[in-house]
């Protein structure tokens, strides 16, 4: 893998309303790389995201479906978005509530494809 992680993450955080973006190890829930996690503890994002995605993956497997290709946790104050990438990684963004989710999803997928 030869990807400029910082540069790729910056493309995500350039989207208006994105508070921060990071690459997370899905198994361990550890930070691999992060970009401007404004006021948010990166380690907490990594661990919590990995936990939520892991639980959903077990649920979708129990339903006979494949693992999630996109996860969106929506809360009153914003969203947590995650897209799995190769090598057991997750590309994650934390956003404000009024962000263009479709655009962030595209950027997350683009980076996940780069990591593949």
């Amino acid at each position: 893998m030869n990807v400029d992680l910082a540069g790729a993450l910056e493309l995500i955080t350039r989207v208006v309303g994105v508070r921060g973006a990071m690459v997370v190890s899905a198994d361990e829930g550890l930070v691999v790389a992060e970009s401007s996690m404004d006021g948010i503890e990166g380690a907490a994002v990594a661990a919590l995201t990995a936990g939520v995605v892991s639980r959903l993956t077990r649920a979708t497997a129990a339903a006979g479906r494949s693992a999630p290709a996109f996860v969106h946790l929506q809360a009153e104050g914003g969203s947590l978005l995650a897209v799995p990438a190769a090598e057991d990684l997750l590309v994650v963004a934390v956003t404000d509530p009024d962000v263009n989710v479709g655009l962030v999803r595209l950027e997350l997928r683009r980076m996940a494809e780069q990591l593949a």
Partner: protein
Amino acid sequence: MSIEDIRVLTAQLAADPSSLAFLPLAEALRRRGQLEAAEKIAIAGLTRYPDLADAHDLLARVLGDRGDLERAFDEWDIALRLDDRHAGAHKGIGFLYYVAGDLPRALKHLESALAIAPEAEGVAAAIDRVREGLAGMEGSSDVPAAAGEAPGTPAVAGSTAPSSGDGAGSLFSGLEGAEDGLLLIDGQGLRLGGGLNGPDGAPVGDAVAAHLAGAFRDATRAARLLSLGDWRSVGAETAEANFFLCAPTEDALLLLVRDSSVPIARLAKHAERASEAARRWLAGAA
């Protein structure tokens, strides 16, 4: 459009998947009656351009041709939310209201379509037909059933799932997916109602409920620790299906599962109706 034109557009799209060539290509396939192919191309385009009103309008027309009027309505509704001056979406929704017998709303949307695009094919004639229908109703007590209801999806014949009858699915009677695609789960991971089947048709509701037992706690903890406030929903897209999870009450989870062609945003709308049903059912069961 000729077959050669379609070949050119197909090649163009293959060379550049981000191209807007999916719009004329899917429309050409729709006109040729190749509705399945048209739907696939429209959906693929929407994954790249989810905010493009024209793409939602295109998918709605394909769905309308396939007879899936409820989904067509939802796509036109999304198109109008993105662009409230989209003539095609006004025309499409006006047609659906006409089919549903809601002539006042049909007239409103068709007039909007005509005002925005006076050259729009067939709209003026449709308005005349609706006005004739309304004139026939004057002085009569035969007011269309939907006319006095709150705005929403027209009650198009065949668009609502049949009643699930007795059994766990009756909790969601009348809702799409009442017995396969809607699950109500308690805090201990037990299925309270609804049902879900795997791709082979075998029931998987109980297993999925068990795996989601801690999802409420996970989502609550994640949202609060990330200073996002209370969580509202969790959406998950897989290759085959989309999942949408929300909490109709403090101690119950609602899961909706639909084919991956149904966008998460549409699942959220379905979830509102299913949550209402769940709350009523839980209040009655208490």
